[in-house]
Structure formats: structure tokens, C-alpha cells
């Protein structure tokens, strides 16, 4: 399908990261991860548990921007913490920086004691990464995001987890990193970022140029798959009829 947009490729790539999760709590942070999770729930994984992002488990799948649905449970923050510790959860967070070893930073840019730019803070990233499967979404892949070493380690990559001991690795499970250019994991040599696929129209060289470290590239790098006609219909007609996805991944003519 030639009219498939990059945003739609990203949405299905995000959905695919939740496809094999089974009956767990999917916690997407932000717009595109929410779109991808809801798409997964309508296609590959109907057992996913999703929330309104506030305090309710939803039985159905509402469009972006709406939380109106049949309610199947109560998930206020204190019970989110219970689930984080208990385990059955896959979170997809953002990352202001992510490094070669899959460490993530959402805390601060520069020296922590006196940052040049204060960000959100550590939020739940340290706990998420040592307790639940954790994936990342990066809407604008650039050398400022894919950095050699993050300024502050909030989300823990596999190497840092290993160095911290068994309690940190027992449930450590870094999933995928989906960006506007491709899909990655952190299973390159010595637990480094590895390119799994490039989105149609993106070359391996494009990815390297947009990264501040050399991304490990295996023998064969396929294109990220395109959404099926059914998935496109769900994205366009049902989940995001207002086109909110283009705020994060603009169409080429809008860039």
C-alpha cells in the first residue's frame, strides 16, 4: 500500500512489541505508544489489559483522546506500584536520551547537581526497568537522543542491571526501542543497541547518521512491516480518526 504513512508504520511496530505479551497490563506513556497498544489489543493480543491512563482498567478499546468505555477494574497509582512489583506489566516509556547500552534518561541534561536542562525526573523508570518488560518510543531519532552515554541513568540497561547484581537482573527485560526510523533491541554484542529493522524508505546509513554511537547492525536488516488493510482501517477510522499521530510523526509534506 503506497499511501501508508510513517506514523502508521510506527503504530504497527509499537503494536508488534506487545503482540506476544499475553494477559498483562500494557502501560503506554504518551500518544503513539497508546495508539500502538490499543491496536495490539484489537488485533494480535486481545488479552492485554489497558487503562484510561488515570485509574480505570477499560474493557473496550476507545479512540485516542477518549477514556469513555466499559470499566473492568480499578488501577489507581498505588495499585500500579503493586503491579510493578508483582510483575505482569509491559511499559513503553519515552526517552530524552538513550545510549549504546540501552540506558534511558528522562531526569536531567548535563550535570545532575546543576543541570543545563531539568526534565521530568526519574519518575518510575528505575523501578520499571528492574521489574517489568520495558520498551521505549522515540519520535525523533537524532544524535541528541541516541547518545554514547546518557547524562543520568533513569531506565536501567542490561549491562548496568548485571553490574547491580541478581536482584536487578532477575526480572530485567528490555523489550524494543521503536523510533521514527526503525526498530531496535539491546541484544547486540555486550548488550548493546542492535538494529532489527528500518522503516520503509529509511536506510541503515540513515540510522547510523541519526545516531550518536555506532548502532550494531546484523547480517540482514529487513524493512519494518507495513500495516495490513485491517490495521490501517482500525488506525484511521477507529483509533485515531483525528490524525493525532501526525503530531508526533509528521507526514513528509508537513515536516
Amino acid at each position, binding site marked *: 500500500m503506497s499511501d501508508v504513512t510513517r506514523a502508521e508504520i510506527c503504530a504497527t511496530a509499537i503494536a508488534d512489541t506487545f503482540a506476544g505479551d499475553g494477559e498483562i497490563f500494557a502501560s503506554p506513556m504518551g500518544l503513539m505508544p497508546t495508539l500502538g497498544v490499543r491496536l495490539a489489543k484489537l488485533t494480535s493480543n486481545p488479552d492485554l489489559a489497558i487503562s484510561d491512563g488515570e485509574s480505570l482498567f477499560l474493557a473496550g478499546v476507545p479512540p485516542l483522546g477518549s477514556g469513555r468505555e466499559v470499566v473492568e477494574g480499578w488501577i489507581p497509582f498505588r495499585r500500579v506500584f503493586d503491579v510493578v*512489583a508483582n510483575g505482569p506489566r509491559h511499559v513503553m516509556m519515552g526517552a530524552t536520551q538513550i545510549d549504546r547500552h540501552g540506558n534511558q534518561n528522562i531526569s536531567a541534561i548535563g550535570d545532575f547537581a546543576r543541570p543545563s536542562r*531539568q526534565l521530568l*525526573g526519574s519518575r518510575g523508570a*528505575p523501578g520499571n526497568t*528492574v521489574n517489568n518488560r520495558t520498551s521505549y518510543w522515540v519520535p525523533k531519532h537524532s544524535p541528541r537522543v541516541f547518545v554514547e552515554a546518557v547524562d543520568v*541513568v533513569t531506565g536501567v540497561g542490561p549491562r548496568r542491571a548485571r553490574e547491580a547484581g541478581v*536482584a536487578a537482573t532477575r526480572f530485567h527485560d528490555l523489550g524494543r526501542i521503536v523510533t521514527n526510523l526503525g526498530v531496535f533491541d539491546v541484544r547486540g554484542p555486550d548488550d548493546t543497541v542492535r538494529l532489527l529493522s528500518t522503516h520503509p524508505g529509511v536506510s541503515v546509513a540513515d540510522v547510523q547518521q541519526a545516531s550518536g554511537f555506532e548502532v550494531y547492525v546484523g547480517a540482514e536488516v529487513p524493512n519494518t512491516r507495513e500495516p495490513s488493510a485491517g490495521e490501517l482501517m482500525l488506525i484511521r477510522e477507529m483509533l485515531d480518526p483525528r490524525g493525532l499521530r501526525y503530531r508526533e510523526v509528521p507526514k513528509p509534506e508537513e515536516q
Partner: protein
Amino acid sequence: MTRPRDKQMSIDDVVSRISSGMTIGIGGWGPRRKPMALVRALLRSDVTDLTVVSWGGADVGLLAEAGKIRRLVYAFVSLDSIPLEPLFAKARQDGTIPEIAEWDEGMFFTGLKAASERLPFLPMRAGLGSDVLTNNPDLSLVTSPYPAADGVHEEFVAVPALNLDVALVHMNRADVHGNASYLGPDPYFDDLFCMAAQQAFVSCEQIVDTAGLTVDAPVQRLLIHRTQVDGVVETPNGAHFTTCTPDYERDEAFQKHYARSAADPQSWAAFKARFLSGDEAAYQTAVADWRRSDQHGEKGK
């Protein structure tokens, strides 16, 4: 009939119980159901050198800007629809908060639980491998005395108790004795803040008869019991501009005005003069005036 004691007090009574150097826990979450009337009163007071413990929103931004914070314990400071709290970000970038303790947000829950259970710490995985440990060298690890199935004695973060001198929380309804209910989607951790504190003060939208607390709300809404509470204040619209669902939602327009004003020293001085120079009644009047006039003007700009 004998009744439990009446704990009603004024906003100023609450502030009079707080002294410089204390550790203050502020309930709610980010920009949700924050005891803002009590925070505004703290801004007006001469109390200083506070340790503030908060899942932070504008409460942290305002106290930081006013120079009230010596030590801040937080996991994030955010206004949700405006991700970065501008006054907090400025304070961090200017280095004006002397001591910073940035934790994982779940560690907060654990630290409050430890304090409420009168334990020095509770073990947790969160923090392992992250710079939370690097940037908080006072956080220690603890080795499990019990072997796991594989024989390993795992090493966890020993999250220290977040012992509070004072807890400030805002609830939807309370009686004069300190029984209090939340009517919105999430209790947050306001009961834990109260139990972790030497003194707990509950502000609320409305004080009702004890029987009134369960007239139109199930008993499970009664999050806080009077045995945990030292004072009750009725502060209508007292969480403004944060959410207090279902009494009111977040005042997004005013929050935008706050964030825009905070971005520039001159407009911030004007904001403070207009909204934060008088008492709580003056604040509420100023907000009502703003809503009638300026908001429409700004929309046209």
C-alpha cells in the same frame, strides 16, 4: 452525647503549627488534588528551610521559587498537560535548591509505608543499577537474610522511611473530627502521608456532618480516619488550579497562565502581585476576576 473533639481550624492555624526546618509531606499527585490553599499560606509565611516530600506539581514549583525549600525529595515535578513545571525547572537550573533527592516514584510509596509502619526502611528492587543510587549516596543496600530458590542472597535498595513532621492533604469532604473522603478517581497516598507524619492537617472542599460523609458516597471513600488527623480546614476551591474531581477539574486555562507567567521575570512579578500577595480569599477573588476578564482577552491574542 459525647463526641470526639472538634479539630476545625483556620489556614493560619495550620501554618502556625509549622516551623522552619521541618519536613513537610504534601499529598495529591503532580497537578492533582494538591492542598494548594495550605501551600499558598506557606508561601506567605516566614517559615523557611523546609524539607519537602512530594510527588510534585505546582506545590513544589511555588515553594522552590519562594526560597522555602532547603531539601527536596521528589520523583518528578510535572503539571501533566504541561510536562515540565517551569518554576521547578528554573530552580534546578539556577541551583537554588540546596539539597536534592530524586527518587523513583515507587520508592516514595515504599518510604511512606516504612514511615507509617514505624520501620527504618523497607527493601525494594527499584533504584538498583540506576543513578538514583549514584545521586543519593545516603541510600544503602540490604542483603536478604533468606536465600532465593537459586540459593542467592539478593541485595535490595533499603528505602529509608520518609518520616514527616507535618502532612498536608486536600480531600473532597471531611467532618470536624478529621474523618475525610475522596470522591475522585484516585485516593493517591493521602492516608499514608497522614500516617507517616507527626501532625496531619486535612483541608477539604466542604465540612459536613459525620453522617453526611456516607449519605451519597460508599464507605470505601472514607480514606482518612480522625485518629490520623490533627486539624481540619474548610477551603473551598482550595486545590485550585489542580484537579479536585468531581468538585472541579484542573483549571487548564489558569495553569497555562501560571506557566506562561513563570517563563519571564517581569510577568512572574505581575502574577505574584496579582494572585499571591494576599490571603486565600484574595487569591480566589483574583482568580474569579481573571476568569471574567483577562482570560477572554488572552484567548483573542
